[in-house]
């Protein structure tokens, strides 16, 4: 419950925040590095901009990309896993070879290369898409394994005897059984989305288009020299604390989901 509450808080911050406290990107050089005050609850940065507003407005892209990553990754994994498991034979072997290749290739370096080779600034959707492209393989493999074990179950045989279509079997017989697993993995991919995206901006691989936590950390470290410059600590720590909190929220929600779907976990305690 705590996890869901944290995530809900961040979602509220990302959706309502930018409306209530819009970000003003003009430089106020007379107000650089101000300590926290009523006007600027988290102080100001090297250009006199409000830190709190940057954190709030930065959360929008972070969450948007993270959720998109969750959806796209799960979608690719579902399509690959289910078709591979259902069709079988050579098709399955070929598809799994591709999946294994994606599983073994070091994914973060690959992501960096892909991101760097794209010629222009990327929309949140495109960022989410390239993160998903390197991250779907593990989930596809386990979905396939689940499909393989589910399709031998008697109720699938019953459905086949009733001459129900493959489409029906996939969507009405197999999918509902996979649903708990898919939901949990989706939350897991969302944390991966936060991680990869913030890191791409931190390393400066993606150009800075809008405010974003990874960008803030990058600027804090390389432009403000925040490790030594004590005045920049708030600017550095605000996005960092947000990342830690948000990820904790997602992981806790994931655990909560697991417990809902798998009552055995609850009785163990």
């Amino acid at each position: 419950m705590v996890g869901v509450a944290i995530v809900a808080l961040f979602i509220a911050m990302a959706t309502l925040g930018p409306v209530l406290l819009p970000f003003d990107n003009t430089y106020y050089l007379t107000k650089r590095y101000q300590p926290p005050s009523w006007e600027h609850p988290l102080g100001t940065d090297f250009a006199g901009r409000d830190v709190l507003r940057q954190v709030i407005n930065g959360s929008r892209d972070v969450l948007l990309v993270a959720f998109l990553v969750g959806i796209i990754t799960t979608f690719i994994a579902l399509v690959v896993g289910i078709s591979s498991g259902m069709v079988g034979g050579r098709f399955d072997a070929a598809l799994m070879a591709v999946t294994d290749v994606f599983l073994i290739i070091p994914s973060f370096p690959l992501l960096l290369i892909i991101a760097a080779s794209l010629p222009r600034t990327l929309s949140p959707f495109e960022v989410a898409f390239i993160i998903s492209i390197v991250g779907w393989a593990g989930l596809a493999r386990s979905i396939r394994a689940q499909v393989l074990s589910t399709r031998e179950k008697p109720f699938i045989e019953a459905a086949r005897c009733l001459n129900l279509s493959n489409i029906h079997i996939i969507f009405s017989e197999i999918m509902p059984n996979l649903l708990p697993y898919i939901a949990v993995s989706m939350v897991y991919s969302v944390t991966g989305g936060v991680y990869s995206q913030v890191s791409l901006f931190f390393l400066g691989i993606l150009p800075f288009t809008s405010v974003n936590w990874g960008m803030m950390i990058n600027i804090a470290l390389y432009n403000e020299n925040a490790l030594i410059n004590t005045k920049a600590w708030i600017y550095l720590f605000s996005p960092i604390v947000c990342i830690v909190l948000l990820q904790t929220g997602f992981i806790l929600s994931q655990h909560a989901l697991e417990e809902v779907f798998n009552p055995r976990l609850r009785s163990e305690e």
Partner: protein
Amino acid sequence: MRWIFRRSLLLLLTLFSALTINFFLVRLMPGNPVDQMLNELMMQGYSYEEARTTVAQIISFVPDAPIHEQYIAFLQGLFKGDFGRSIRLATPVTTILGYGIPWTVFSMSLSLVISFVIGALLGMVIAYRRGSLVDRAISLYASVSGAIPAYVVGFFLVIILAIQLRWFPSELGPYGRNVIPPGPGELPSLEFISSVMRHAFLPVMTYVVVSVGGWILRMKSSTISVLGEYYVTAAEARGLSDRRIVLTYVGRNAMLPMFAQFAIYIGLMFTSSVFIENMFLYPGIGRFFSQSLSWRDYPLTSGCFLITTIAVVFANFLADLLYSRLDPRIRLE
């Protein structure tokens, strides 16, 4: 044997795909390094033709050839150990890799061993205390820490331990600024070694903090599954000492999958070092890799990515071998 053969085939396929992806993606990179070099050379007074041949020599790249011939030339170059020259640093890529690899291997293997040992011990302890407060606290820490990028933890450690408490040098980099690194063929001075060790402490600790969780969880689930086996119950029924059961019955069997995982993580060394090396300005492969991307230094990018992939592929092969050696059940499949 068939299993190993199939796995090797898969690994070769992976290596080949990585090479291909590498070849095509870097050619798509904006601010095409070839054009950039051509421009630079022409500004230095070279004629267009001269500039082209120079560029072709430098990055072992035939500018006018059709793409498949370029690809073959690229593969041939790699087999000869020719990775081209870095554009930005104007040195052969192999020299740069030769400089970077030891730093990464040194810091990351230290980190890996430490987090593996701590993780295996803690994982086993909490598997025995399932459901206790300790278990819940450690498990939560373990799963959250895996989702947090290393640099986030690194900042806390640097600011608290190096800047506030002054336990460690606060200047980043692999060794102190006034320490002279040993020349080629020279033995490193004592001063150099101690400086390197003190500077390695925070990067290593950062890696341990973020990666120990994964080992804890792996060991915990491995131990729990072993604890459910009948031979453990049988050993208990025979009245064997707890010590013996924990070490030889549970411990050894629970460690089996851990060793194969360890082999895989050795291969992931160059991947996991990207953040830490960028944060601590540590001149390893991870640092060169991300820098080469922002410099658009395409031969260097290729070289780093290749080393990373080769390491991963070999480690996977090692893990497969190890697994089938250690666990005869796999061999029979």
